């Protein structure tokens, strides 16, 4: 009974909230008011239903006895997968094969739409993996990461148009210049923590975008830069489907490279230093970790990938403008890292692909894309803050003493 009353109250409350914005629409052009009462009914019903179900679930959970498994011993699905070396190797091979044949399997001569979609998605996968180093491993909240992506893109655009440098020359340059930016921007913010760090990086990102928008002579302003050359294949410039497929393989290679480098670093001295810094800065410094160098290396490495893939982005689209580098994009990449699981390579890849591919293929929900995204961020933080995949640690092989027949250690 009390559940009914509570759900009713919540339903009515949300109807009240929805009243001005969802019901009334003032049309100032033809001076009339549109009343959409059905919206309010919908909101009320949905709110009522959700409230009811939530209370039901809560009641059931408190009635159930506590789980008998010691949480310290429970291993997640992913951990079990990772521990099983032959299985994970086979899985990796399968995925690689799929990735390689993908463009030929899903496209025809005229229709290579899916390949292009995948290229965009994979670009964001690289971005997610790059930010994963800075935020996921080192815990340095960066809300302006997209700026490094822009740096890479505009570097290629300007160098190729003004100095005729080719794609392959500019690719590492974009990464290096991105990395420089990362160090330069990272240096003054070394001592900032948490919220303040997030806001400053947000400021950096926004300043970058505004400068790009307004400095017409150098960056083309709001109109951007067009006519950016495509990546060459031994001097050949490709077109149409071949171009899309070529871009696809380039990005795929980048993804593989990022995954390789990140996983090597994650389980190394510097990776552990990053994580220690993330967990407890004071303790890690007391244990000998150089805070400045370690943090700067995290910024630099993260920015490197963004710069690198920025070049690919510019080359693939042949046209860039500041609208591709907004705060929303930074937020989306951050969401990929947080929702995927801080530091988890597989988690970030899954989150990135989901966030980029789902809106493309569920066109029916296209309008509600950002709405769902925002709600998802809130809900994930409430129900699964550790992200999709968390707490996966490598097993080390340490010298186990040999045991003789009696089980005595020698």
């Amino acid at each position, binding site marked *: 009974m009390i559940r009914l009353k509570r759900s009713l109250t919540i339903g009515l409350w949300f109807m009240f909230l929805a009243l001005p914005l969802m019901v009334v629409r003032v049309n100032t052009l033809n001076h009339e008011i549109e009343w959409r009462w059905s919206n309010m009914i919908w909101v009320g019903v949905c709110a009522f239903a959700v409230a009811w179900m939530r209370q039901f679930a809560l009641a059931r959970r408190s009635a159930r006895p506590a789980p008998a498994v010691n949480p310290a011993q429970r291993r997640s699905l992913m951990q079990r997968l990772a521990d099983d070396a032959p299985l994970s190797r086979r899985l990796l091979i399968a995925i690689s094969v799929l990735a390689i044949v993908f463009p030929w399997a899903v496209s025809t001569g005229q229709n290579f739409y899916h390949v292009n979609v995948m290229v965009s998605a994979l670009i964001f996968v690289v971005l997610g993996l790059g930010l994963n180093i800075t935020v996921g491993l080192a815990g340095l909240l960066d809300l302006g990461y997209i700026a490094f992506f822009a740096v890479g893109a505009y570097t290629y655009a300007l160098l190729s148009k003004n100095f005729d440098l080719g794609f392959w020359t500019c690719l590492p340059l974009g990464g290096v210049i991105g990395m420089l930016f990362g160090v330069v921007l990272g240096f003054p913010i070394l001592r900032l923590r948490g919220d303040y760090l997030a806001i400053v990086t947000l400021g950096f990102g926004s300043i970058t975008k505004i400068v790009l928008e307004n400095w017409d002579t150098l960056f083309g302003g709001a109109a951007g830069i067009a006519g950016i050359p495509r990546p060459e294949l031994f001097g050949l410039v490709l077109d149409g489907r071949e171009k899309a497929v070529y871009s696809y393989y380039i990005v795929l290679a980048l993804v593989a490279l990022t995954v390789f480098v990140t996983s090597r670093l994650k389980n190394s001295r510097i990776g552990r*230093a990053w994580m*220690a810094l993330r*967990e407890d800065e004071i303790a890690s410094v*007391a*244990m*000998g970790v150089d805070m400045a160098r370690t943090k700067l290396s995290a910024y630099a490495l993260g920015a490197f990938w963004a710069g690198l893939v920025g070049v690919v982005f510019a080359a693939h689209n042949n046209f860039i403008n500041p609208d591709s580098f907004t705060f929303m994009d930074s937020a989306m990449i951050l969401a990929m890292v947080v929702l995927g699981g801080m530091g988890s390579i597989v988690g970030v890849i899954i989150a990135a692909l989901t966030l980029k591919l789902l809106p493309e293929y569920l066109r029916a929900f296209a309008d509600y894309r950002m709405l769902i995204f925002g709600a998802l961020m809130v809900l994930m933080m409430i129900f699964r803050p550790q992200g999709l995949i968390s707490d996966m*640690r490598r097993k*080390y092989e*340490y010298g186990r003493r040999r045991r003789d027949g009696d089980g005595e250690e020698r």
Partner: protein
Amino acid sequence: MTAAAKLLEVSGLTMDFGGLRAVDDASLTICAGEIVALIGPNGAGKTTFFNCVTGIYAPTAGDIVMHPPGAAPSRINGMKPNRITALGMARTFQNIRLFPAMTVLENVMIGRHCRTRTSIVDAIVSSRRALREERETVDKSYRLLQRVGLADVADEFSRNLPYGAQRRLEIARALATDPFLLLLDEPAAGMNPQETRELDELIVRIRAEDRLAIPLIEHDMKLVMNISDRIYVMEYGKEIAQGTPREIKENPRVIEAYLGEETHA
């Protein structure tokens, strides 16, 4: 104390926080192989003393000089904590500061950070040096875990350990930095008498095996009286007595400062 080498010399250490003087003209010398206990009522400035010496705070006045064995003395006032650790001073924390999302073994491995040199490039290409250092790090860390009795939980997340084990882990982590000075901040806090006795033995064993000097802050008087070579008593930021356990036990000023404090019998 006259024959043994000086390892740490603190003279006239003063630490002000705004208008509050937390440490007032404290002077203490630690010699090789000593266990020196820093005791005093809560708020006496003991942890602040440690924090100044380990570089967390830059002292307002005074001198802190480290004498690494076989190297020139260095004045470490205001030096960054990681440099001080690299010079050979390690510590544990009053409120345990482990790395919760890392395993027990990895917590100790962090201690090896300042003693290894694998660079980012080395790590990416898995150079021979990187692999060798990694192997050494794992082995050394595991052996430290064996010494403190945590070898069987090496792959557990450190946050899952019981309290006493966490304290021992902090000690193992500090030892991983190869210090010649080990500062322990209330290592027995929250431990039951059995655990405290084991800790007692552990500290003495470490002192002998690693030839360390161990300044420690403690409230557990039984532990302090048992293992300390010297005791330094603080109250309101100032030193009020210094001497052997017997001397301190009978010192009227100390007894007065502790009035109401029950010694653990």
